[in-house]
């Protein structure tokens, strides 16, 4: 997880990890979640759903931090997060 600057209480910080649940058939491919996921965890899938929309999917290299912004933003109630665990935050400075 990238930080603007290293928090002083870094070792006490625990960063949540979330499971992303995508109701593929309910999605209408609006792209809000992909655009506004702060960790860029989502990308439009190549597989379209029954209605021909491309739902999001989790980018394998990315980790969801369960901020639930996608869940609150989704106009079709097609994505939600369940918090999996909380892990120590490690600083990966300057990574992309």
């Amino acid at each position, binding site marked *: 997880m990238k930080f603007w600057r290293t928090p002083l209480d870094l070792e006490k910080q625990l960063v949540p990890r979330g499971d992303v649940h995508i109701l593929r058939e309910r999605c209408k491919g609006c792209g809000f979640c992909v655009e506004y996921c702060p960790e860029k965890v989502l990308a439009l899938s*190549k597989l379209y759903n029954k209605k021909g929309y491309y739902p999001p999917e989790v980018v*394998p290299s990315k980790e969801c931090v369960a901020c639930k912004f996608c869940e609150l933003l*989704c106009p079709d109630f097609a994505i939600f997060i369940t918090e999996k665990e909380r892990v120590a935050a490690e600083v990966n400075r300057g990574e992309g």
Partner: protein
Amino acid sequence: MSDTVTKAPERLAEPIRAEDLPHPMEKWLRMDRIPHIWCPTCGLGTVVTALVEGIKEAQIEPDRLAVVSGIGCTGRVAGYMKFDSFHTTHGRALPFATGLRLSNPKMKVVVVSGDGDIFGIGGNHFIHAARRNMDLTVICVNNFIYAMTGGQVAPTTPGPANTSTTPFGAFEPPFNLPYLAESCGAVYVARWTSLDVRRMSHSIAKALLKPGFSLVEIIAPCSTLYARRNRLGSGLDLLKFYQQNAIIQNGAKTADVGIDFQRPFIVGEFVDAERPTWEELMRKQMKSVLGEKFIPHEGGECSSCE
């Protein structure tokens, strides 16, 4: 988008099948009516979620909350939300809500409707409900256009936007809704875009908890009509525009928060005043004159039902 997936995985690596787990919003929605009718990239679904989050945050007892909506895209909100809900006639959600509230003062009544419904045909009812400080929470989803009927100019359409009834560009000066609401007497007025999911729900919670007339205006993208006719891209592009051009100024003077076409605009919490509600004023007046003889209307039961 830098992290696009290069090759399509054979099977999506998903430990839990999403369909098995209920979406947290499902217990608040009439799931037998989902998916809803709103267009892709419309902001209305987000507003429904924000309203539910606001109700939860305000800890309103769900059985004590009624949703009243008028006609138009936003008018369909009542039908999807699992509360006592009333889909009334165009522009008349507010007086309907006034009657519902006064007949059953234990109910928290939320009016959810569009800019055309509330401020166009329903304008007369809005200014009076605000003047009376009627205990109602009004959520106006402002997409700057009459979308349901195919994209006609609305009282909020900023010039020179193109609409189906202003094919050569809108030219009438639009309403500044927070300014109008404050001048009529609303005690709480806030405006957010539909991207500000948490700010919306916090403002809605405050509006619900604050006695009197409150307005939460939500600027939401309309892809199929407003964005398309004005070549503004999709609803997502409009949302990006709103994100980059919405300037948060809590406490801004409402006279200064008018919205021009595709220009930066001000959002935030503008009004948080104290004024006695219609019911408080009425009860105080009646008690002062009638004393013990005054019997307030408790409501909630049909006076001569078995």
